[in-house]
């Protein structure tokens, strides 16, 4: 019994169909609890007023935006090294989720920045690197969409994901450097950083993070199943045309 068994599409379909109901129920519960708690039952923070409630959607989505790219990197590597098709399809299935998470993080950040910083958009290192990350997601998805042959597409997007990861990291540090050069004292996000967070915010935040992770898993399973079915459909159509 090893994890590689799930590289078999049949085995994956079987296990995922068993797991899906559980994961989706857990997603709904944790998201509902976390978001309702965060929205209705948290008090105003000293410096942020009620905008502290934005924390519960902004932080998890931002975390997921990065983590999903890392997950794509891992699955791409598995595909490139061990040629497991499910792995490549999982990377393909994850990209749109990651892109949506990036949009959410940017939108909630902009909405929060408007009253707190007095501007919708600031060329702050964090914001800028997220915008760049979003561009990488777009390029990745566009490349998947552009190539006909599925194996070629999987290979090329895998290589792109590797190179993109390096450059996304590099951009992150370059952008940090760049903005320090522009103005020394830029506004820094204090929430969720070093200052200890009050437990009354911490607990719902953790629940929300768990909820976002579970939501990602649910959507990922659903989308990967769709991709596997699509692959089989294409194969069957091909066979029919050959016959």
């Amino acid at each position, binding site marked *: 019994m090893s994890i590689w068994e799930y590289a078999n599409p049949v085995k994956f379909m079987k296990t995922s169909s068993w797991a899906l109901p559980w994961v989706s129920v857990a997603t709904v519960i944790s998201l509902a609890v976390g978001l309702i708690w965060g929205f209705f039952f948290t008090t105003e923070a000293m410096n942020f*007023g009620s905008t502290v*409630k934005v924390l519960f*959607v902004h932080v998890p989505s931002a975390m997921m935006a990065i983590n999903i790219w890392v997950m794509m990197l891992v699955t791409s590597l598995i595909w490139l090294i061990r040629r497991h098709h499910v792995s490549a399809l999982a990377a393909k299935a994850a990209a749109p989720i990651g892109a949506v998470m990036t949009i959410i993080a940017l939108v909630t950040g902009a909405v929060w920045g408007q*009253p707190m910083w007095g501007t919708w958009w600031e060329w702050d290192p964090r914001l800028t690197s997220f915008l760049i990350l979003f561009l990488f997601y777009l390029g990745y998805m566009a490349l998947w969409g552009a190539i006909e042959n599925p194996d070629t597409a999987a290979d090329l997007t895998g290589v792109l994901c590797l190179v993109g990861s390096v450059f996304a990291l590099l951009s992150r540090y370059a952008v940090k450097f760049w903005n320090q050069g522009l103005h020394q004292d830029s506004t820094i996000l204090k929430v969720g950083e070093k200052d200890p967070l009050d437990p009354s915010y911490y607990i719902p935040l953790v629940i929300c993070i768990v909820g976002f992770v579970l939501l990602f898993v649910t959507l990922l399973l659903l989308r990967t199943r*769709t991709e596997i079915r699509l692959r089989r*459909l294409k194969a069957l159509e091909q066979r*029919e045309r050959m016959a």
Partner: protein
Amino acid sequence: MMPELGKYALTVVLSYIGTLGPLAVLTIWTLWRGAKVKAALAAQEERMKKNG
């Protein structure tokens, strides 16, 4: 029912809409596409079985 949000009410509500909206769209799109592909695959398999 609504909590007291003070002067930042719009900000908070907008950010929650901005989160739940895209997530809902993504979920519905995922489910819709999943159902479509599943139906297409079932139809294809049915047809192939009939034709032998």
